[in-house]
């Protein structure tokens, strides 16, 4: 898996934390919604950047009051055909004005990258077979669109 951000491949400084892995004092971790809900206090006391991961069935409204606590939100694509996270992404950006990293995880393939980008994702855990350097070209395959989406205040 490679992480694509801002059109380059970068080293991932975050860790996805399983629900049953104990929380350490240090390090940037991404936790599930379930863990956030059950260990909220503990996670907030920690002085480290926090990320949350939503399954495709978990909508933006489930965390909309808590956005200030997150530096990263990861939205899952359990299979590329499951398009629910596109809606979640737009709502986080456009309705709730979330400005932190919005990361696509799961079956994140080359030919979906531009749709994701346009919905407000800015980081991609690339799972395709093409070499990621080549996949980056997907972001610029098209530059003309009809919809006014993704206008979420990025300068």
């Amino acid at each position, binding site marked *: 898996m490679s992480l694509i951000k801002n059109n380059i491949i970068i080293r991932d400084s975050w860790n996805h934390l399983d629900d049953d892995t104990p929380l350490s004092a240090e390090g940037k971790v991404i936790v599930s919604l379930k863990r956030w809900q059950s260990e909220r206090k503990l996670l907030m006391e920690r002085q480290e950047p926090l990320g949350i991961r939503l399954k495709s069935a978990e*909508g933006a409204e489930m965390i909309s009051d808590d956005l200030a606590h997150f530096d990263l939100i990861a939205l899952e694509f359990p299979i*590329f*055909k*499951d*398009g*629910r996270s*596109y*809606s979640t992404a*737009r709502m986080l950006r*456009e*309705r709730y004005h979330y400005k932190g990293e919005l990361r696509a995880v799961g079956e994140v*393939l080359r*030919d*979906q990258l*531009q*749709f*994701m980008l*346009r*919905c407000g994702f800015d980081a991609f855990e690339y799972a395709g*077979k*093409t070499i990621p350097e080549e996949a980056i070209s997907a972001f610029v*395959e*098209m*530059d*003309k*669109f*009809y*919809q*006014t*989406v*993704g*206008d979420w205040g990025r300068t």
Partner: protein
Amino acid sequence: MYVYNLVDQSLVNQRVQQFRDQVRRRLSGELNEEEFKPLRLMNGLYLQLHAYMLRVAIPYGTLSSKQMRALAHIAVRYDKGYGHFTTRQNLQFNWPKLKETPDILADLADVQMHAFQTSGNCIRNVTADQYAGVAVEEIADPRITAEVVRQWSTLHPEFSFLPRKFKIAVTGSKRDRAAVRVHDIGLIIKINEAGEMGYEVIVGGGLGRTPIVGVTIREFLPQQFLLSYLESILRIYNQIGRRDNIYKARIKIVIHELGAKEFTRRVEKEWKTIRDTAIDLPVGEYERIRAFFAPLPYQSLPKNDAGFSHLEFENQDFSHWVRGNTLPHRQSGYSIANISLKPIGGIPGDASAKQMEVVADLAEKFSFGEIRVAHEQNLVLPHVKQTDLYSIWNTLKEHNLATPNLGLISDIIACPGMDYCSLATARSIPLAQDISNRFSNLRRQNDIGELSVNISGCINACGHHHVGHIGLLGVDRKGEEYYQVTIGGSADENASIGEIIGPAIPYDEVVDAIERVVETYVDLRAKNESFIDAYRRVGKQPFKENLYVTN
């Protein structure tokens, strides 16, 4: 007609380039079929029984002569010299080679056409009344709305991976020729008391395994809010539509499970949140699109031309065609001329490259270069002078395009069925041909009057059998083709789903059975009572009794 600007053109061109690269990656093995499938589907490419099939989008069924010629050219150069007009106003090529499909798309792009979203789980090519802008009783032209929807839905980043396909149809007329009540979203243009334009919004209609007439969730949506409202509906559907069962994934199931009231409440709530963001079209952009559909420079002509009336009087065949296949136009002295793609014994909706060229030439000479495709799988020359009808008819006749059977029993709607389709469980085309041959006598057809026969080769209902006055659904029974007969369906403003009238019957007995149903109607009808009206009066019983009688 709408003409592409630089944005439209470069979007289409870029998409061709992108697809060329996707095909290259598929051919090199970098993409496997499963990964390639959604990509090709979003560009209209299916893998069928014998070959790939390319479904070209004809947005709201409007074509120019130039575009029709390009389709003819593609049929000759890349296919077997013909194409098939579909029940969604599109055109299918049945034999393209995968490696040539990018070239076909490039040829289409040259004439401002594409195959975007004619398949896949996305918002499909939008359809509309084929008589848009010319029907006498029209309230407002649906093409402007349809073009707005086309643009909005094209490569929509949020709605390209929906639970299932999503179809939108628009009509601007009281007479519904676009079957808006059996679409995922149907829009009926209305003018309110203040003289403002808006839409009745109907959601959740559809055919397939669970045929259902849609429900109105809003009586009047002001025109300027169209896109935010559509976006609200689609967002709710994208979030809660079922993804666990392909047969329960359409929006009609959401509405069924949630209830129309709760669904509407959610849509309205979402809409209130997004209606004042930048989703809706600026007035200027709407006006820009509207300008393309301004009335054409018609001549001022008398309502009835003496020479034309004389020709009609002199030539009975011509007169039959005029009465059967032409309709009055909004503009005095003009007609709407329908071109039947249902010659007796022919394949419904098929047109040869030569026929396409003939129609293109006729449109150029007599109809401001414009052609329409009807969802009944026929073509239309939308604006022809009465005085030109005779010469048009003569040309059509030479090319087997002048069958005067519009709306009659041989004007059969049929899907490609097992002759082409990988989903089909039975044949549709040969059955359509047999029925057409049985009722070949035009006098008899006219005596029977308006009667639609719709044939689907499987439960997916591409032949819209549920809404045929007589519907036939092909099913497989231990390797044999059987057909379930439904009666009383209708796709118009009084939309209804046909009733199954008994056990399915084998292929060889279908034509006789249809004939008995028709004779039952002829025997029991009141004066001037159509088949559907008679059915609605007497119910299915008399038809059922006679359907299964064998000699």
